[in-house]
């Protein structure tokens, strides 16, 4: 039996990554993500892994991609300005199909913003934060235990789809301390590094997609002599200036995630069975939203909550289903209004969508979200 321990979200993230098989971390300190680097520096060598503090976040991103190509599961973590610096190489990981996890413990931006204060202002950066068309997977935990679980999931998805995965934490969960019981190693499912299915002599090509549209790219040092580049390339890995290949590769990069969308889009519902209204929230904000919804229920309002664990790809199906049955949706997020646009896109006028936004460096009080629920029930803002 594993024992309950008091730990922080950031620590749980480290534990989850290690449990998922991560053996390499490269990073640069920045509040409120620093505890992840510190935890990795302490724990990685105890399991034979390596930690390296790089000169900046660009280098941190490069070093983990190199380690991943050489066969180690690798993670980097940062916040705000540091994530902005990583963007070019996040795109490199998407283009060259390199498994990697980027933890973003969100803080108030733009720029240096409010360094120690919570925010959820990087929802769209997580989706679009690099140039060009690319798919993205982003997960957002609401508790310390879930920081562990989503870290495992993020590593597994990065390996399974050979793609960068963003673990979109926030300062609330990152610095939250809770008593948690972590699962036994035997209870954790790990997606292993994909392996070449044939030899060079049999015509192996490093970027030929498997049935699930994901290639079984060899690691460096295994004798396959592969070429990896950020230029658009065909199955051989070599660049090619062809409209056909450019179109096919761009399409496949998206489709490899799209066809697994139902499986990787995790949503949880609370009090939704008889709900006439729904609050959509994620991450640390969902904790407050849950209390607000429970309070509103006590007042007799039939309101429920939909919590997004997977932020990207967006939970189109789940939100559409809810829009069919409720009279209104309130989106509570700790920013000027980002996720709400996605909800509106999917709801497409089927019911009113209201925004409960907060962007003053403090977390929501339940009363603030309750007021939002009241307004929604009363038929929108006056």
């Amino acid at each position, binding site marked *: 039996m594993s024992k309950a321990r008091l730990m922080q979200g950031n620590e749980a993230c480290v534990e989850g990554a290690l449990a998922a098989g991560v*053996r*390499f971390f*490269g990073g640069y300190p920045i509040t409120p993500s620093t505890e992840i680097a510190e935890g990795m520096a*302490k724990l*990685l*060598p*105890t*399991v*034979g*892994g*390596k930690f*390296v503090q*790089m*000169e*900046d976040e*660009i*280098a*941190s*991103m*490069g*070093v*983990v*991609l*190199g*380690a*991943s*190509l*050489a*066969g*180690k599961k*690798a993670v980097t973590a940062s916040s705000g300005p540091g994530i902005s610096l990583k963007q*070019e*190489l996040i795109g*490199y990981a998407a283009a060259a199909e390199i498994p990697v996890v980027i933890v973003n413990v969100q803080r108030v931006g733009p720029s240096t913003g409010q360094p120690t204060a919570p925010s959820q202002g990087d929802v769209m950066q997580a989706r679009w934060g690099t140039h060009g068309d690319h798919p993205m997977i982003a997960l957002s935990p609401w508790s310390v235990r879930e920081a562990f679980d989503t870290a495992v999931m993020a590593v597994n998805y990065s390996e399974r789809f050979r793609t960068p995965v963003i673990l979109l934490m926030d300062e609330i969960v990152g610095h939250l301390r809770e008593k948690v019981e972590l699962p036994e190693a035997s209870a954790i499912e790990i997606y292993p590094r994909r392996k070449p299915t044939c030899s060079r002599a049999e015509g192996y090509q490093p970027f030929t997609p498997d049935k699930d549209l994901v290639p079984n790219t060899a690691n*460096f*040092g*295994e*004798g*396959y*002599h*592969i*070429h*990896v*580049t*950020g*230029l658009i390339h065909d199955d051989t890995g*070599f*660049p090619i200036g062809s409209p056909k290949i450019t179109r096919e590769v761009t399409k496949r990069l998206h489709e490899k995630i799209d066809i697994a969308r139902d499986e990787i889009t995790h949503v949880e519902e609370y009090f939704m069975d008889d709900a006439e209204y729904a609050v959509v929230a994620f991450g640390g904000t969902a904790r407050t939203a849950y209390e607000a919804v429970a309070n509103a229920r006590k007042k007799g309002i039939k309101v429920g909550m939909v919590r997004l664990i997977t932020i990207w790809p967006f939970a189109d199906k789940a939100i559409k289903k809810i829009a069919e049955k409720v009279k209104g949706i309130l989106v509570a997020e700790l920013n000027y209004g980002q996720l709400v646009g996605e909800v509106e896109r999917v709801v497409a006028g089927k019911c009113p969508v209201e925004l409960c936004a907060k962007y003053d460096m403090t977390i929501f009080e339940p009363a603030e979200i309750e007021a939002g629920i009241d307004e929604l029930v009363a038929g929108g803002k006056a």
Partner: protein
Amino acid sequence: MERSFEKYFRQNRLPHLWCPGCGNGIVMKAIVQAIEKKGLDQDKTVIVSGIGCSSRASGYMDFDTLHTAHGRAIPFATGIKLANPELNVIVITGDGDCTAIGGNHFIHGCRRNVDLTVVLFNNSIYGMTGGQASPMTPTHKKATTAPYGAIDRNFDACRLAEAAGATYVARSTAFHVQHLTDMIAGGIDNKGFSFIEAICQCPTSFGRKNKMADPAKMMMWMRDNAVMKAAWDKLPDDKKTEEKFPIGLFYNESETDYATAYNEVIQIAGGADK
């Protein structure tokens, strides 16, 4: 007859895309000859490059090869080496790639003393983007972004590498091919961060702007101005004119490389048998 070094090239990726007379091919060949001389296992050698004309070399070389982003070859190479220290990691970079956009990674790579062999193809210009000034374009030389002559002072990348902590520092030129090969081979031998500056000609983007469009003339310039280190050290200061420069091995000290040092960390942390 197949020449012994041909097995190190991906014949189906040739001919290369470089201009006629470009020095990149000479330096690339010197690298594979150094690899051959040192008997490196082709399956256990990784070539990592940045972005630029010179960095396209990785695609022609028959190893595991990685063409990274502009300036970022050294961080990627660091990750490869630390993840699997049994791999020999050779970095190909340009003067802009290494000392402008990648300058910070370069000095920190030197400081960490990761066991990499970094070969800088110094053509004094941004070749790929058509001849803009780089931090290694000599002052007063012309570039498309310095049409009246560069006023920036240029880096001496060898002195920079040594000051930053590289444990092997050497320079040679595309004219001195055998010497260049030896300098690279020495870098492969050094277990630590080895830096070799290979001066090479870009007739298209640098030469034409600076009255040296003929690649043979550019190579003769290397022949006439490069001075072997031993001779350079004896040269009186008034003979060290602006065009003259030293070549040879400038620095080589044995220091614990990063991966070896980290193994001690793993020992202390108790993870050695994991």
